[in-house]
C-alpha cells in the first residue's frame, strides 16, 4: 500500500494542487485571488500531464542525448496550454481592472449587492 502510494506520489501532488486551486476559487471573495486559484489548478493539470510522459532514467526528448527518451507529446500539449493559460489570465485581469473601474471594489459579495440594487 505505502509502496504503491510512493510510486504514485506525483499524482497525489497533482490532485492536491487541483484541490488547493478549487478551494481558492470557491472560498476567496477577492477576484484577483480567484484568478490565482485558477492558475494553481491549471498547474496541477500540467503536473499530471508531464508525469504521465515521464520514464525513470530516461533522457529529455533531445535526439543528441542517449535513449530511452520521455514522451515528447505531453510536453508539447503543456507548452501550448501554458501560453493559452497566460492569455486567459491576462484577459481575466483586464476584466478585473474594468470591474474595479465600474464598481470600485474587487469583493464579489459587495459587487453582487451593488448589482442587485441596480
Amino acid at each position, binding site marked *: 500500500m505505502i509502496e504503491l*502510494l510512493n*510510486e*504514485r506520489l*506525483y*499524482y*497525489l*501532488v497533482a*490532485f*492536491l494542487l*487541483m*484541490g*488547493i486551486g478549487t*478551494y*481558492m476559487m*470557491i*472560498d476567496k471573495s477577492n477576484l*484577483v*485571488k480567484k484568478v*490565482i486559484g485558477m*492558475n*494553481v489548478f491549471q*498547474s496541477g493539470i*500540467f503536473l499530471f500531464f*508531464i508525469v*504521465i*510522459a*515521464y520514464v525513470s532514467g*530516461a533522457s*529529455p*526528448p*533531445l*535526439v*543528441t542525448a542517449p535513449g530511452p*527518451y*520521455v*514522451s*515528447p*507529446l*505531453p*510536453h*508539447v500539449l*503543456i*507548452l*501550448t496550454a*501554458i*501560453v*493559452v493559460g*497566460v*492569455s*486567459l489570465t*491576462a*484577459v481575466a*485581469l*483586464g476584466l*478585473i*481592472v*474594468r470591474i*474595479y473601474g465600474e464598481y470600485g471594489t*474587487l*469583493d464579489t459579495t459587495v459587487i453582487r449587492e451593488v448589482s442587485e440594487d441596480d
Partner: protein
Amino acid sequence: MNEALEIALLVFVVGSALVTALLRDVLGSIIAFSAYSLGISIVWVFLRAPDVGLTEAAVGAGVITVLFLLTIAKTVRPTGERTVERVNPGALIITIAFVAVLSTTVFALPPVGSSESAVVTDNVTNYYLENAYTETEVNNVVTAVLAAYRGFDTLGEAVVVYSAGVGILLVLQKEVFE
C-alpha cells in the same frame, strides 16, 4: 539523494501553494504564487521536461507575476489585521470531496516513471522520437512537433494570444483612449 531532493521540492511546491491559498494579503499571495511557479518549473526539469521548465519559469514566475502586480497597482490591495485567512469549512468539505474522488483513480494509473505506460509505448510517441530528426532536422523533438508536425496547432495558439490582446484592448478601451 535524487529521491530526497524530489520529495523536498514537492513539499516546497505544495507548501507554497498552501501559503498562496491562506495568506490574507493579496500582494503576499502573489509573491507566494511566484515562488510556487519557480518551484514547479524545477519539478519540470526533474521530470525531464526542460522546455516546459523554461516556459514556466519565464511565463509563470515572470509574466504572470508582473500581470498580477500591475492589476493590484491599478486596483486595490485590501488590508486587514489578520495575516492568515480563516478556513471556510464549506469550501474545505467540497475541496476534500473533490480530491478524494480524484484520488480514487490513483491505483488505476501506471506507476510514475513506468516504461510500459500507454503514453510512452504509444505509436505516436515512438514515431516522433524515431523520425523527428530525419524528417525535420531538428534535434529537439518537442520543437519538431511544436513547429513542424503540429504547426497548425501553434498557429491556433498564436490566434488565441492575438485574440487575448484584442480582448484586453476592448475591455480596457476606456482607460486606453480617454
